[in-house]
């Protein structure tokens, strides 16, 4: 954890005055309680999201298998699956960083090192945004790219008939 805290300070350098440092040291334990609550709620959120993303993946994989069983071209669904999985992987990477930063901020001795705590807070905010952006990218992919892929597949099925 010490190494990650150093990385947060390198990536998000913070200069605190002695007054700011003292104020943060006295209030940070309350902030850690709030962060712990956010981290706990995030675990539930992640569970339902994992299920939703996995189910979508399974549905797409099933379409791929069924097309293959019918000896039909699978290139459209192949590309859709690759794109979808790439977006989900990006989301998982960002989420991992977000959760790790939350965990570090909750567990660290914030009173002893308020500057590192402030840097870890900035890391949490940055990784939260990255995670939200990645989740929005998945949503956009489903609404646009996947919709186009399914429209193409529908047309091809009509041609085969």
């Amino acid at each position, binding site marked *: 954890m010490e190494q990650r805290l150093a990385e947060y300070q390198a990536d998000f350098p913070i200069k605190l005055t002695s007054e700011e440092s003292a104020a943060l040291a006295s209030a940070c334990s309350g902030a850690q309680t709030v962060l712990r609550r956010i981290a706990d709620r*995030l675990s539930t959120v992640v569970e339902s999201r994992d299920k939703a993303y996995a189910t979508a993946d399974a549905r797409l994989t*099933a379409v791929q298998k069924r097309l293959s069983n*019918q000896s039909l071209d699978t290139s459209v669904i192949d590309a859709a699956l690759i794109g979808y999985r790439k977006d989900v992987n990006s989301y998982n990477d960002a989420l991992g960083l977000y959760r790790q930063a939350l965990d570090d901020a909750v567990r660290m001795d914030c009173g002893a090192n308020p500057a590192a705590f402030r840097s870890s807070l900035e890391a949490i905010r940055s990784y939260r945004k990255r995670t939200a952006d990645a989740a929005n990218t998945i949503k956009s992919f489903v609404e646009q790219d996947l919709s186009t892929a399914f429209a193409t597949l529908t047309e091809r099925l009509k041609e085969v008939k």
Partner: protein
Amino acid sequence: MSPDTAPYKTPESTPDQTSPQKREPTQGTNPVAAIAIAIVISMILAGIGLVSFLRSDTKKNIALIQQSSNQQATDGNVVIDETSPLTESDLSQIRSAIEKDIDALRNDVDFNANELTDAALGL
């Protein structure tokens, strides 16, 4: 030559192995009739087995097993067909299901920036 090493001599009473044995034909058995009877009996048994199978639940169970083998449960709740031929209607339903699942995820709520402000954290 000592008696212990003397070659074994066939007793006088042993019948001559080279002479052909005469077998009396069994009276009253016709091989063709026996085979025919065996065939008829096996056909009757097969028929009884078939009727029993059709009347039992085994046929229904096999149909259920074949139906379920076409589907895959991802998490115990969602059942996904993986084998039956794909139709346009199927594609429409699958697309709607995926969109519904992903739309149900509230990105702005799950990853809310407002709960991480200094004020929200009491700083």
